[in-house]
């Protein structure tokens, strides 16, 4: 089966305390696509991502990965196909050393020692973190943690990469480096983010979420030029599409 297609059909989810997470979300993401999921805080981005990996199951509607509905029977298969990079790398890096952490997934897959080692070194090499392999994760910088978190997922060679705010709390250089790295990946990518400039760099398609609903789904550039849409979804144009203020008075509105 081809794992690369992700489909959501009319997803509804309400949190136990009554907050509406998703109300009727549908989309289809095909092989090799790179899709940004944008929306204000609490729009339902993270809730949606947790559905793609079976951590939350929709009250109504279904998620299909590679053409098969996601259910408890094929949960393991789906989790193999979908690599998830969480927002906080400290949650993702739980082993004692970087090497052990990246090896965790492949070892759980039951791969042999030599292959695990090869995969770990390759994944670390890809993200430029090979020199960190013996370090304990708590001693890494935020940018290094992020790279290693991505390596932990790459080592399992997933077909689909799902990322929650990959550029948050990175300094400008680390951010640029990360974007360059993600550009080289051939996976299907689903990236939830507030960083619309990164979305422009990486994703040809964008899905805008607002209060648990999709308010737009289309080419990134076109959506980001639609000021009315952005405004109604509590978003702003990416910085590079905003006109530079010529004088400081323009900023202060005098």
């Amino acid at each position, binding site marked *: 089966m081809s794992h690369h297609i992700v489909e959501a059909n009319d997803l509804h989810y309400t949190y136990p305390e009554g907050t509406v997470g998703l109300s009727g979300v549908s989309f289809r993401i095909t092989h090799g696509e790179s899709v940004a999921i944008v929306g204000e805080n609490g729009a339902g981005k993270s809730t949606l991502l*947790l559905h793609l*990996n079976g*951590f939350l199951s929709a009250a109504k509607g279904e998620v299909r990965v590679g053409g098969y509905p996601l259910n408890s029977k094929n949960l*393991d298969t789906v*989790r*193999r196909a979908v*690599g*998830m990079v*969480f927002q*906080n790398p*400290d*949650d*993702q890096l*739980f*082993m*004692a*050393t970087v*090497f*052990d952490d990246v*090896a*965790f*997934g492949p*070892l*759980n*897959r039951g791969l042999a*020692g030599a292959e*695990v*080692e090869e995969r770990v070194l390759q994944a670390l090499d890809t993200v430029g973190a090979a020199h960190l392999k*013996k370090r*304990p*994760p*708590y*001693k890494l910088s935020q940018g290094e943690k992020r790279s290693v978190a991505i390596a*932990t*997922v790459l080592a*399992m060679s997933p077909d689909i990469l799902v990322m929650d705010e990959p550029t948050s709390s990175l300094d400008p250089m680390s951010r640029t480096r990360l974007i360059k790295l993600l550009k080289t990946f051939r996976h299907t990518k689903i990236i939830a983010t507030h960083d619309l400039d990164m979305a422009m760099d990486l994703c040809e398609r964008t899905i805008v979420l607002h209060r648990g609903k999709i308010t737009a789904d289309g080419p990134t550039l076109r959506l980001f030029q639609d000021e009315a849409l952005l405004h109604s979804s509590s978003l702003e144009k990416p910085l590079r599409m905003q006109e530079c203020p010529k004088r400081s008075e323009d900023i202060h509105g005098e």
Partner: protein
Amino acid sequence: MTSQGFSDVGYIDTIAAGDSPLHRIDPRAKLITTAAFIATVVSFNKYAVLGLVPFFSFPIILILLGRIPAGYILRKLLLILPFAILVGIFNPIFDRAIIYHIGPVGISGGWISFISILLRFVLTVTSALALVALTGFNSVCLALERFKVPSPFIVQLMFLYRYMFVLTEESERMVRARAVRSFSGRTMHFKTFVSLIGHLLLRTLDRAERVYRAMCCRGFNGDIRILRSLRISLKDIVFVIIWVVLFISFRFWDAPLKLGELVMGIFP
């Protein structure tokens, strides 16, 4: 700073990353030797004092040959000392029978056993710290795993070690956030403290859930697997045998007494 004690714990990894003949001994050999050491030290009767003295050779040799900063071990020792004192402090009160006389001064059994407790405490804690400093916490866990210690226990230890630092940072941030908003009162009220601890617990639960998700994403099914080959060599076996033989002879052959007799024999 409150973090001092903890960031200091991280320093033990820095020591463990060093290189010395002792660093290169297999973690399992060091673990067995230390366990044998602790078992022997603890097995003495409660009034043993002089019999314990030769045992100091073990931690001292580890510290010297392993080039462990002795000051660091000493500081950690002082940190835990109050607990040992608490355990033994009532002995002199309850056990007043005089069993030794030094000149005109009688020393009660309580004081002897108190000193014995302190000696054992210093011996066992120092050697356990030296073990971790020479091996690294993770390798100790790995050695435990190879000895078939149940995996939930090892997983707990590893997670404790990994998230201790995260938890410290988090609580530090909260304490700081409280401090900047409480101008006059430097001390924390009990109510504030309770809510602080409560929040910390809730955050920890949230984090636990997120970590668990991240683990499931990578195929976690109850076992933590670590890829590391350990090879036991002749020098490791020799290391264990020499020390265990020494411990046993220290235990059953009263070295200070024999030494005393020997000296007395030479200078009658």
